């Protein structure tokens, strides 16, 4: 009856958002009086899997088929179906990320389970199984009751702080019969920005708009981002003008992010931009126009010229870090 969680790792180290998903599942399991089983694929050391116990996992089901190293939604769905059957799972948690958005809906369809995609709260069991999620691109929330026997949730990453506790999980092998047809998508090439924090996972983000004037000024933003350990983002016209790569564009037509801190520099704050960032916990706006709409959505504002303010902020961060 346990709560099942699909966990992801980078070269054998579990991602922080997967620890968050385990912790979230553990909360649900406590409410339901059951346990948590994580499902891991690929090359991970036993000790790393056992360590998931510190976040609330009781058991880890591990499947090692090397073909799973390339993500494939069909094959991963089969793995999760096998795990769900083995554990008689009634609740299955994934992340609302590129992996979870491909696997969880497939799994829900297969198990005839209701799905809440992008949950931002724990299920309320007092009136059924009611889960809160963002709707209308961050302008509102909906509380959705899952009425089916089996329930699937994808958790919005960075919703809850991850707290390490005590405990160790047991590890069991999970055998899944996978055929070549499950891997019929061929990965030709992968290009990843190495070293950088992926924007979707970043806790701190520094973002620039047209007010930055041109790509030649971006080193100033990058210096601030580096000092903070932040990822960089941009508004749509910036990506459209090829000042910055398209994967940095946030907003209605770009990425949606929910960092702890979003620093918007030279961005006016159009509603289509806000749609991608208004889930951020704290927003700082730096703009030379006191009438810029973004100030209305901000927690902290600085009125001034980007090229003067940013280097000062970078210096202040440096000073603060040195004093820590």
């Amino acid at each position, binding site marked *: 009856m346990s709560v099942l969680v699909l966990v992801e790792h980078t070269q054998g180290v579990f991602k922080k958002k997967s620890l968050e998903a385990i912790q979230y599942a553990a909360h649900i399991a406590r409410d339901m009086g059951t346990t948590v089983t994580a499902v891991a694929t690929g090359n991970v050391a036993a000790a790393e899997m056992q360590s998931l116990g510190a976040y609330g996992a009781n058991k880890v089901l591990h499947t090692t088929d090397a073909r799973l190293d390339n993500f494939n*939604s069909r094959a991963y769905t089969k793995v999760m179906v096998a795990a769900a059957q083995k554990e008689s799972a009634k609740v299955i948690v994934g992340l609302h990320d590129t992996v979870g958005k491909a696997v969880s809906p497939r799994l829900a369809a297969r198990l005839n389970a209701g799905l809440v995609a992008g949950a931002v709260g724990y299920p309320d069991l007092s009136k059924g199984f009611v889960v809160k999620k963002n*709707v209308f691109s961050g*302008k*509102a929330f909906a509380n959705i009751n899952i009425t089916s026997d089996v329930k699937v949730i994808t958790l919005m990453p960075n919703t809850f702080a991850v707290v390490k506790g005590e405990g160790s999980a047991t590890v069991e092998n999970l055998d899944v019969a996978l055929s070549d047809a499950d891997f019929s998508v061929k*990965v030709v*090439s992968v*290009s990843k920005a190495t070293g950088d924090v992926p924007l979707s996972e970043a806790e701190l983000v520094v973002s620039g708009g047209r007010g930055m004037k041109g790509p030649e000024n971006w080193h100033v933003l990058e210096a601030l981002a580096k000092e903070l350990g932040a990822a960089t983002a941009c508004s749509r016209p910036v990506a459209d003008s090829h000042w910055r790569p398209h994967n940095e564009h946030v907003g209605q037509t770009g990425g949606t992010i929910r960092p702890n801190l979003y620093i918007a520099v030279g961005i006016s704050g159009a509603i289509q931009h806000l749609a991608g960032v208004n889930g951020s916990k704290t927003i700082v706006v730096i703009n030379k126009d006191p009438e810029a709409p973004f100030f209305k959505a901000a927690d902290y504002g600085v009125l001034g010229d980007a090229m003067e303010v940013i280097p000062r902020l970078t210096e202040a961060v440096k000073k603060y870090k040195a004093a820590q």
Partner: protein
Amino acid sequence: MKILVCISQVPDTTTKIAFSDNDTRFVSQGVTYIINPYDEWYALVRALELKEAGLATAVHMVTVGKADAEPVIRKALALGGDEAIRIDADSNDTYLVAAQIAEYAKTVGYDLVLCGKESIDYNNGSVGAMIAELLDMNYLGFAAKLDIAGGVATVVREIEGGEETDTAALPLVISCQKGMAEARIPNMRGIMAARTRPLKVVAPANIAALTTIVSYEMPPAKTGVKMVSADNMDELVSLLHNQAKVI
């Protein structure tokens, strides 16, 4: 090659969102509805391009919704395409929407099903992958490029922290985003033609919803911006550390 494009009707982004009946109903009066941008600019336009290039024989578009969804699917017809289908069902539950589309798709047999990366109202990003499972097809999410040759699709798509190029034989379900195509504006001839072109209304299959919306909530209002002097960035850093606790 037959293509099915999934079209969702959504409130225009600039719409002011409001709820009534104790926050249990979305107020649709006065709301301008548009085609979900990802469905229109990327999925539909790319499908039309594939037809213009002689690679697709037919482009159909489908929406799951009641009669009030018709103006939006007509707008889609004005951009082009051969046939528009409305499946006459409520569209509140993801599974129900996907299952209705999958049932209809089975009766025609499509080689390619294109949808948007997510709807800007319910932001699920789930319908495409569900359709793929229900049709037992491969699914490629977040595609920014799609080419087809000899029954094989080459797709460039977003993955975490980068992008990936995949090849897969048809049939396939693909969710589309920025990069796929350039937005088009319907011309007068298209708009006139769409008026007379038939819109096929299909009775829904007998499928039960697996979720219900209980209520809506507005996010807590921002308490107002705290302005910090441009000469005092130490204060900003200190506020971010001590008050906001984000660094």
